[in-house]
């Protein structure tokens, strides 16, 4: 923010956000939020500053700043606020006001890929199936797990489970404990070959529409495979 020129308060529109349901106008400027925020001070950010600027009608400045993206969404500010201001939700709202192409890199790319291809990595279906089967073969070599196979697109299974994209990318070992447990429990489970992504980065960018699309796809998989129970580890 430029600190030299005074900001003409009469040019601002403090009423612009009074329909928002985050109670930001209740702020007493006590600074409890600023004192607990783990990233307060980074780029001169603190939650009180953001809340006050929104309340004064300086939303554009906040949206253009890096502050909402510095926030880790830990929620301590909200817990400590004596006036019950929903600071985390307010931060998400601010993030959502950033134009898509200006959303910080990985979030913007990952979310666009997920909406287009069904997962954040743009991993093709055949590669996904190959990875699952490859890891499945390794599991089948373990004592007591002879004959294990990964049930993909099994109609009428009891449980549908989603997959975090890192488990079919850099952390394939982390798939195995789940599968061992399913096997030991004799669980009737399956994984969908399309739209298997369990994460939805719309949560981080404040993009509720994207979240709706991602969740809708999982629901659609459940309908298609006639499954009642969802295991959604994310």
């Amino acid at each position, binding site marked *: *923010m430029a*600190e*030299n*020129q*005074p*900001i*003409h*308060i*009469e040019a601002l529109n*403090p*009423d612009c956000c*009074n329909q928002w349901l985050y109670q930001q*106008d*209740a702020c*007493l*400027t006590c*600074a409890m939020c600023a004192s607990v925020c783990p990233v307060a001070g980074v780029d*001169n950010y603190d939650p*009180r*500053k953001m809340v*006050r*600027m929104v309340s*004064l009608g*300086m939303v554009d400045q906040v949206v253009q700043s890096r502050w909402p993206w510095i926030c880790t969404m830990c929620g301590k500010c909200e817990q400590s606020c004596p006036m019950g201001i929903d600071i985390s939700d307010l931060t998400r709202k601010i993030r959502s006001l950033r134009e898509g192409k200006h959303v910080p890199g990985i979030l913007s790319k990952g979310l666009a890929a997920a909406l287009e291809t069904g997962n954040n990595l743009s991993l093709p279906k055949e590669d996904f199936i190959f990875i699952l089967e490859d890891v499945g073969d390794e599991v089948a070599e373990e004592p007591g797990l002879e004959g294990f196979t990964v049930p993909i697109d099994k109609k009428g299974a009891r449980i549908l489970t989603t997959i975090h994209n890192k488990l079919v990318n850099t952390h394939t070992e982390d798939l195995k404990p789940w599968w061992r447990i399913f096997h030991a429990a004799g669980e009737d489970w399956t994984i969908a070959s399309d739209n298997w992504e369990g994460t939805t980065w719309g949560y981080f960018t404040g993009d509720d529409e994207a979240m709706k699309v991602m969740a809708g796809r999982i629901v659609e998989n459940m309908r298609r495979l006639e499954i009642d129970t969802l295991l959604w580890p994310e």
Partner: protein
Amino acid sequence: MENKAENGVRGKESLSAEVMIFGDSVCAQRIAANLVDNGIGVCLAAGNGSSPASIIQDRVQWLSDTRLNHCHGFAGNFTLQIDHGHNQLKKTVQAIVVAEDDSRSPNYSQYRLTPGLRVVGLSDLEEKLKHSMTESFSGTDTRIVLLCGWRKDAHPSVARRMLEGCLQLQAQPGVSTYFMTGNMKVASAGSEELVHKAKQAGTVFFKFTGVFPTIQPQENGYFTIDYPDESTRNTFQLTADWVVVDETIEPANHLELLIQKLGIDQDHIGFAQSDNVRRLSNFTNRRGIFVAGGSRGVLSHAEQLADADQVSLNVLSFLGDLDGEPLAGVTIKQGLCARCLTCVRLCPHRAIEVGSRITVITEACQSCGICTAGCPGRAIEMEGVHIGLETIQRMNHLLAITFVEKPRIVVFGCMRSAGQSHTLIQVSGQALPEGVGFVEIPCGGTIAGRHLLGAFEAGADGVMLCICHTDNCQSEIGNVVARKRAESTRDLLASAGVETERLRIVSLSANMGNEFVYRIKAFIKDIVLLNNPQKENKNG
């Protein structure tokens, strides 16, 4: 009772009243109405030339343009000399109520402003709003800035009025309000709700704690306000059409004179009631003199009205008890009195009369005994109070027989705090530790150094003096003089080679039964160590 009042009148105008009310405030008039409704004759002395409201017109004696010259007498029989215009009146009344308005002045200088066309004080604003003179404030794009408690916190009642004014202004067409405050006590009744309402109505709030805005008047009469905002760390600028400043509420100028003439205690600001919980809500150090509304502190309008009703009850109850039994008598033995006036100076209740002889006014005396302990000639006696050497010796006699191996402890305690705590212990089935003799005294101020030394002389190993907490003494200074006297007694002990730790001063309140026992036990433990210094080493 009216006849009784007639007797005292010596002036040109013969007036009959049982109660004199000083002040023409809303509070004073309400007290007058309450008392008259109860058949009590009331005279109301206003300082200026104002006239009564219709509710009390023709029912009270209304004296305007008055000044109190002298107050003589006591509860039930006060004689007042009053300047009334060019005349002098003498009036005898049974009770006095001080109910002058407070004084309110806009805080221009706190905001480095001078009074001007576009600078409005809070009371002025309220007048304008009351009479719907708001057209000057409305119009397109009118910006009004309210300044509240920057360098000195605004009193919560003032802050609330500022917020109420702000809400009304914000409701005017075309008006935007900006509330610039220092620390504000939003925890006071109703404040937080008002802040919330104002914010909802569209008022913009800024809070400052260290660096305050600068307000520059422009040639066209408007103001440019520059300010660094502490929470956003931005510099803002605002052009204001109007500036509203808060106000300071203080005792009225002429209250000082009334306080002086009536001989009542003041608080640290100068209101006519000391900072003492025993005075709440409407009492003073003098029996029969009451204080209410803006004379006793900063009260909101609603609080002043409630105060008027409360003080009316207090006065009625006082008048009803006038014929009751007086308290235990304090008498001055004329043969021993040297007319040194120490008692006059000490008495917090103004109960010593200086005439051809020095006498105690029974009706005003509260039997605290501060004078008996302070009298250098030991000329003052209190009926039924025995705290001298003989009393302790009799007690010690008992102690000596029963508890040979225990330290002997004498505890003096004020009947309003330690005495109550002692009763609490007894009714809850407990007892004081063995070897402890408790002497209940009317007030900490009853105790003189000779009583404390007398207890040692009678064989006590330790003496504990229990007084009331600070600003809790029924007689205002009893706990203060007790502490002073005990401390100088300690010096005497030291010069006689006695450990000063053997005399302990503690303060208690009436509901501290367990703490009372705890404090005594801790004292005994320390005295045992003093008696047997080797014991500690052996055990250690």
